[in-house]
């Protein structure tokens, strides 16, 4: 494994998004994963519609919450194409699902995987490189006050409650860490990113990991 890896270096990660007061982190994380894997597969970096997932993933609860696994299951079963953000813009509230013709341009999911990597974070690093950015669920209670730096304490792994996207890692320093793309705007954390220590399942980062295949 390389000592550091970052999907941003491959031009595969869109700018930080802001979910505002909408509890749609689960949709932001999987749409971010789809955007990045599309680039990994040779496509252009596109901004896809989070609102489409919030409105149309019927087994979830839109801005009131949801599951990355359930959303990927829906995308995989229905083969619904994700359209561009400009065609279906983010409104930060629940709305009626807008359907597009099957011929409409968009990106559909071929398959997905969901696994628990606790105790296997090195394996998770390998899968990050092989599969693309990974949507994970973390315990983000202490993230209310986070300003930057590597999270090494105050983060339990027993209460998963927030979905984010792991886009890279760095093991070159004293404390190896995951690079995590959040959806709370650029004024949060380090320009919208958080760093989490690798190796101790900090914040439960390895407990619920999903990857998407296009």
């Amino acid at each position, binding site marked *: 494994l390389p000592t550091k890896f970052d999907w941003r270096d491959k031009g595969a990660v869109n700018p930080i998004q802001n979910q505002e007061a909408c509890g749609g982190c689960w949709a932001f994380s999987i749409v971010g994963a789809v955007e990045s894997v599309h680039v990994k597969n040779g496509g252009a970096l596109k901004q896809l519609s989070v609102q489409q997932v919030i409105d149309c993933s019927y087994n979830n609860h839109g801005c009131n919450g949801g599951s990355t696994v359930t959303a990927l299951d829906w995308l995989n079963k229905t083969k619904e194409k994700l359209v561009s953000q400009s065609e279906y813009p983010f409104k930060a509230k629940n709305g009626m699902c807008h359907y597009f013709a099957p011929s409409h341009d968009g990106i559909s999911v071929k398959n997905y995987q969901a696994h628990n990597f606790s105790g296997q974070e090195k394996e998770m690093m390998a899968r990050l490189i092989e599969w693309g950015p990974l949507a994970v669920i973390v315990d983000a209670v202490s993230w209310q006050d986070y300003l930057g*730096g590597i999270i090494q304490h105050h983060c339990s792994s027993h209460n998963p409650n927030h979905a984010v996207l792991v886009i890279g890692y760095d093991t070159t320093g004293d404390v190896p860490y995951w690079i995590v793309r959040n959806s709370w705007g650029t004024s949060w954390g380090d320009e919208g990113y958080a760093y989490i220590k690798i190796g101790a399942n900090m914040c439960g980062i390895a407990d619920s990991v999903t990857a998407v295949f296009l």
Partner: protein
Amino acid sequence: NNQQEYYQRKINFESSIRRHVYLNSVSKHLTNHSAKYGVNQFSDLSPEQFRETYLTAQAKVVPKYTPLKHGNSLKRN
């Protein structure tokens, strides 16, 4: 516009400051790469408000990753 809400947010903010002192007290004994905690856009929210609004993801129980099994299934796919 709402004085009651203003005072509630002020109380929340003051609680946040106390929380930052606690959270940073562990970090300061570590390297300068340790996480820092302080005032941000959520500092006038109570932990309950923050949880209700932003911590809304539901985690499903997923199978443990087994390298050989899932490596093979990926190749088949």
